[in-house]
């Protein structure tokens, strides 16, 4: 994501005819908006919103009990409303304008100040770029809700959404994509230098760390703070609408092309490569998940296949701009195995109630993907943040990358834990985080929203 040279390359191709005339002394021409890149980025941005609204809302909404389906969908909707405002107000600026210590940006672009109709980021309108990034911020928060459905107060959730997005998402986005410490090639003035690691070059094409590790880990923290649902483990919790979950998975799959291939920020060969590995990893993960189910329970489930697809998509996310088809196969297969172990066994043993497996799918999948990026990154495909050097993983002789990836996962975990604890504390100050047990029993739809899913 967001590599400089890549953009420049495209630009120079386009301006080739001009350059060809030996304007040797002339300054580099101002970049000109590329309509194809812009078309793809607007499409991608729309696709990433589709992933959350209605995609994720359906994916999650189908798995809870009928009395909580609207409430579950409302969490996603709430994130979209709140984070849009906080993003435009300060987050875009803090993530993508300037740099302070490699950790956070500045406030120069508050309320999109200075972002005009003709401002460009690479060869696309900065307005589009800011919206593309916003859609990532929205879905990241919404992902967390999978862990706390059926019990978290909607008021608490709305407040939490904004706070978490500011305190956790923004610095991570800056560090990885905004030119901060984790992605910087050699960040002498950064917090990294302070800790003795000025050079990071972590690879996270479309958000393995920023989106999935962060949301998954934060989900687990929330679960541990809030405790399980009433009667958890006693009553079977039967999904109210598995078709909805499947439709949601389908929309996530389709939208994820915008998520990953859109992260090339251009309509080019890198986008095409990301598109391909995204699809392959998703299908492979689903297939492997299904095979495990055959072995484990004889019956392949539709929720299983849907979960497999999502797990595959999660894991390929950080890798999508770096690996080739081999990487896609291995990443897809690995994440299915590891994630299945987590949701089917580890959760049972550890007894935490991560209702819809936000941790088991997103933190685990994001980590698997981030680490394997350090193994399979093929320098013939992606670049480091400086845009000049091809990004190589262990298989291409650069095993250090695996260490860097592990360290960056660690940083994401630490930021997520600390940030979520702070957010939880702040939310608790203004409102109760959990609904009353009696409200939980009746269902959040009626008690929180005064609505019922259907007429029967």
């Amino acid at each position, binding site marked *: 994501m967001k590599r400089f040279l890549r953009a420049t390359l495209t630009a120079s191709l386009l301006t080739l005819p001009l350059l060809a005339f030996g304007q040797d002394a002339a300054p580099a021409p101002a970049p000109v908006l590329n309509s194809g890149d812009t078309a793809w980025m607007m499409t991608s941005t729309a696709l990433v919103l589709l992933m959350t609204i209605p995609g994720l809302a359906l994916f999650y909404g189908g798995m809870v009990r009928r009395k909580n389906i609207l409430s579950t969908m409302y969490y996603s909707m709430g994130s979209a409303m709140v984070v849009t405002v906080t993003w435009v107000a300060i987050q875009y600026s803090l993530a993508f304008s300037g740099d302070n210590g490699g950790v956070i940006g500045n406030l120069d672009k508050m309320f999109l100040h200075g972002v005009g109709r003709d401002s460009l980021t690479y060869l696309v309108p900065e307005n589009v770029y800011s919206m593309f990034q916003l859609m990532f911020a929205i879905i990241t928060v919404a992902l967390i809700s999978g862990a706390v459905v059926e019990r978290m107060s909607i008021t608490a959730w709305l407040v939490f959404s904004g706070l978490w997005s500011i305190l956790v998402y923004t610095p991570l986005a800056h560090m990885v994509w905004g030119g901060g410490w984790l992605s910087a090639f050699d960040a002498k003035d950064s917090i990294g230098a302070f800790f003795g690691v000025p050079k990071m070059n972590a690879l996270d094409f479309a958000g393995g760390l920023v989106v999935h590790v962060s949301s998954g880990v934060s989900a687990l923290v929330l679960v541990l703070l809030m405790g399980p649902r009433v009667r958890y483990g006693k009553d*079977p*919790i*039967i*999904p109210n609408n598995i078709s909805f979950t499947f439709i949601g998975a389908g929309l996530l799959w389709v939208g994820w092309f915008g998520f990953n291939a859109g992260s090339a920020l251009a309509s080019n060969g890198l986008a095409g490569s990301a598109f391909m590995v995204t699809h392959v990893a998703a299908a492979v993960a689903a297939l492997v998940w299904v095979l495990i*189910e055959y072995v*484990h*329970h004889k*019956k392949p*489930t539709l*929720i*299983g296949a849907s*979960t497999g697809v999502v797990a595959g998509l999660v894991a390929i996310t950080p890798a999508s701009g770096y690996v080739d088809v081999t990487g896609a196969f291995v990443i897809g297969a690995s994440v299915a195995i590891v994630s*299945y172990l987590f*949701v*089917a*066994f580890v959760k*049972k043993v550890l007894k935490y109630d991560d209702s819809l*497996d936000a941790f088991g799918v997103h933190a685990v999948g994001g980590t698997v993907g981030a680490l394997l990026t350090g193994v399979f990154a093929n320098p013939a495909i992606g670049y480091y943040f400086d845009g000049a050097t091809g990004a190589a993983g262990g298989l291409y002789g650069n095993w250090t990358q695996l260490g860097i990836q592990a360290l960056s996962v660690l940083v994401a975990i630490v930021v997520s834990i600390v940030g979520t604890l702070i957010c939880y504390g702040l939310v608790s100050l203004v409102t109760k985080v959990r609904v009353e047990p009696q409200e939980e029993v009746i269902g959040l739809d009626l008690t929180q929203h005064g609505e019922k899913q259907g007429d029967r």
Partner: protein
Amino acid sequence: MKRVEAIVRPERLEDIVENMEALGHSGITVTQVEGHGRQKGIVEQFRGKEYKLMFIPKVKIEAVVKDELVEKIIDAIVSTAFTGNVGDGKIFVSNVEDAVRVRTKDRGVAAV
């Protein structure tokens, strides 16, 4: 008049009703219910876990019939509902004191 109430497997519904109608009794009311009994619960899966459901979908067939028809109706139901496996269902018979047909205001057996 007696109420004959049968709780049976949903997949036998159409056949049973056809059989009852063949006996000349047409008024029947059907309710979707869930049963709990000796039948082993249905096992559902969710992400690697198995849940044994407490309740199994059944249909309840209710017919208020003339006294003399009761045994025939029971036979008709039993013969069609029978599979020999646990969960085939039960039939209960109870008394009905009066009946009214709304359209004609007929009372008693005439209304059945």
